[in-house]
């Protein structure tokens, strides 16, 4: 083949291969960056292997396709030379007739060879070369965007004084070790198994997400999102709050006293209050008071709508049943025996409730510890936390109910349609035969409820009548605030 043509062919082919490679690489970078951006926008930490793999795959395919479709064959090179240099198909003719030995083709070949010998590199330069830079520039721009764009996070947003700093941050071995130690702590804690696995899973995911986090802002968002989820684990498994709230909302004063005496998961069974409650069952109304407490306790814990297998629920229901059973036998017991039996009932209940509350306390303690440690490990200040993390539900219930209690205490005589959620009885007075005077209804309803229970046991009433009377008293205790 013509020497000059071979030289030009090699030059053009080299240029084409470089262009194909640049095109393929640019397309690959575009693809990788596009994958990363899409994942980040979908609140997923970009998988580098996936992004790089996709980019390499697309680059390879693009290069191969470009080579197959547009590789400068001899014919294409000849055409390009003819078109670009206005040679009127001289080179193409030379290539097509290269094997021909006729006189004219030989002359044509020599003439073309001579012309090709005068061609300079400048003459072969493509016009609008800048167009070739468009794709690589776009690829670089998209890649930078992919790096800079934070992963969109769902869940906790910073509260309080969080200043949204954009400082560069990187997950270190120290962080990983600390979080792994935290995971081990959770696994060996006294928390219930379901709760443990949820917390561990949340911590593992948080670690995985943090690998791709590059700014402090993003890191704090990721960690606080995990803290909210961890806090919610305990809220989901602890039943103290709904149960004690139901007890406090009940009309029965004894039930309210029991709710107070029960304590909290952190501090179960306040002994002084518990003993005071036990000691309050005396005198002629003893049996009525016991029955009243039993009934109202059973109704209240059912109204809390917690799982029937929950330990605290079971403890409270069993306490209710023990009280009711005790009330049935109390007439057959002497004074000393009565006191002993009462003590036994209360102590058994206290033990059960204590165990249940302690478990819930352990649950709360574990998640609180985890969250405190996370704050320490990742340098999150308390005032940066969202509101849902600043107060635990257990405390919240206590706080709300305390406020409500204070409000109730302010209400003279309480009841009626009154203020607040608790409505017990009516402000109306009722004639009280014992004192031969009118007294507030709310002061005597417990007594009347106890009398009701006794009478219903001693007298022969149809089930239907019994249900009607039960409902009457229940309505009195839990009057719908919308009435």
């Amino acid at each position: 083949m013509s020497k000059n043509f071979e030289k030009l062919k090699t030059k053009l082919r080299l240029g084409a291969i470089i262009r194909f490679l640049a095109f393929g690489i640019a397309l690959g970078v575009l693809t990788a960056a596009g994958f990363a951006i899409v994942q980040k926008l979908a609140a997923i930490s970009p998988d580098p292997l996936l992004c790089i793999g996709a980019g390499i795959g697309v680059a390879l395919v693009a290069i191969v396709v470009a080579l197959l479709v547009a590789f400068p064959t001899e014919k294409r090179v000849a055409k390009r030379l003819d078109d670009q240099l206005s040679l009127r198909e001289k080179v193409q003719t030379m290539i097509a007739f290269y094997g021909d030995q006729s006189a004219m083709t030989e002359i044509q070949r020599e003439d073309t060879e001579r012309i090709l010998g005068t061609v300079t590199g400048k003459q072969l330069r493509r016009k609008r070369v800048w167009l070739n830079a468009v794709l690589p520039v776009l690829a670089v721009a998209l890649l930078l965007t992919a790096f800079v764009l934070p992963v969109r996070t769902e869940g906790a947003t910073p509260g309080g004084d969080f200043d949204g700093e954009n400082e560069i941050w990187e997950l270190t071995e120290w962080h990983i070790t600390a979080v792994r130690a935290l995971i081990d702590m959770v696994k060996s804690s006294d928390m219930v198994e379901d709760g443990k696995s949820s917390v561990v899973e949340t911590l593992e995911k948080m670690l995985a997400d943090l690998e791709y986090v590059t700014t402090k802002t993003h890191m704090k968002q990721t960690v606080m999102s995990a803290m909210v989820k961890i806090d919610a684990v305990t809220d989901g498994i602890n039943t103290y709050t709904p149960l004690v709230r139901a007890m406090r909302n009940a009309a029965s004063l004894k039930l309210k006293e029991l709710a107070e005496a029960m304590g909290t998961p952190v501090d179960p069974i306040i002994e002084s209050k518990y003993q005071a409650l036990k000691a309050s069952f005396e005198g002629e109304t003893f049996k009525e008071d016991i029955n009243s407490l039993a009934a109202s306790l059973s109704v209240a814990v059912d109204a809390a709508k917690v799982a029937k297998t929950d330990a605290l629920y079971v403890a409270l229901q069993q306490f209710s049943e023990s009280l009711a059973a005790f009330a049935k036998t109390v007439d057959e017991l002497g004074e000393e025996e009565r006191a002993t039996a009462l003590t036994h009932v209360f102590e058994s209940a206290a033990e059960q409730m204590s165990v249940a509350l302690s478990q819930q306390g352990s649950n709360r303690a574990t998640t609180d510890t985890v969250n405190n440690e996370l704050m320490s490990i990742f340098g999150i200040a308390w005032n940066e936390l969202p509101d849902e993390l600043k107060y635990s539900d257990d405390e919240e219930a206590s706080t709300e109910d305390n406020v409500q209690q204070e409000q109730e205490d302010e209400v003279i005589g309480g009841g009626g349609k009154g203020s607040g959620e608790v409505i017990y009885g009516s402000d109306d007075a009722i004639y009280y035969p014992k004192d031969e005077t009118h007294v507030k209804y709310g002061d005597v309803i417990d007594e009347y409820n106890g009398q009701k229970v006794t009478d219903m046991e001693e007298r022969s009433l149809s089930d239907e009548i019994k249900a009607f009377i039960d409902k009457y008293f229940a309505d009195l205790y839990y009057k719908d605030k919308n009435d």
Partner: protein
Amino acid sequence: MENNQKVQAFSEKVAKIKSELRRDVVGQTEIIDHVIIAIIAGGNVLLEGVPGVGKTRLVRSLGNVLSLPFSRIQFTPDLMPSDVTGTNIIEKDENGKLNTVFRKGPIFANLVLADEINRATPKTQSAMLEVMQEHKVTIGNDTYKLDEPFFVLATENPIEQDGTYPLPEAQMDRFVFKLIMKFPGNDELIDIVKMTQITMDETAKAVVNGEEILQMRALAATVPVIDEVLDYTARLVSGTHPEIEGANDVAKKYIKYGASPRAAQALITCAKVRALMNGNYNVSYEDINALAAPVLRHRIKINYAAVNDKLTVDDVVALLIKTTKK
């Protein structure tokens, strides 16, 4: 002669022919080029032009330059075929014996000017065109071959349409080119007047002979053509047919009927000559495009849509070139 020398000689001879012709014919550069191409390619030319633009002068001058016998046939409605080809006559020899002798007609020349061919009857036209095609005359049982190179330049007068017999399309096809000789420009007219004030005779001298023309023809035939150019030519010609599947949209819109395969043959043959005349040793797309109009204008018939859009046949050919991909 060495090949290079032959090629060089080709260009030199063409240059000399052009130079000599310009001594007698003012302007009309493109016409001269195409006539030379047609002669070398072995084709005939149909020339259209108003009287007095130099058609006869061109052919006569060409005869001088090419050292070839020239004859002029003025076609009239009463011209008979035998007036063109010749006929047998009875002659008394020196012994007084009566013999039948063939008297050759004016067609027996190398260069023939068939003036106003469209004035002759179809019968006379067909006799003329048969000779043009076969380069021989048959009278009775005898066949008389014409000397090569044989070239006919026929003219059509575009003004006098009454009493004319337009050439049928099948016979128009026998002309490799149809050339339109335009009225000279002002400067050219001045030059013509100045020249003819000196002498009305042709002053061009002989620079080549018939044998050399045949050698040039043989050399031009060896010019290579790549398949892509052949394919382009075929598509250009077949694109003139609106009835063909995949026809050019221009043909579908503006052409009534298209060119015959002779058009493709003429394009390639003449393109080879043109390439060599211009110092190129291969046929290019540019050669084909430059010859498309003279080759196709008498071979395609435009329809009313073209007339309505004020398009001439040359405009339609230009559109065909524009829309045919290389």
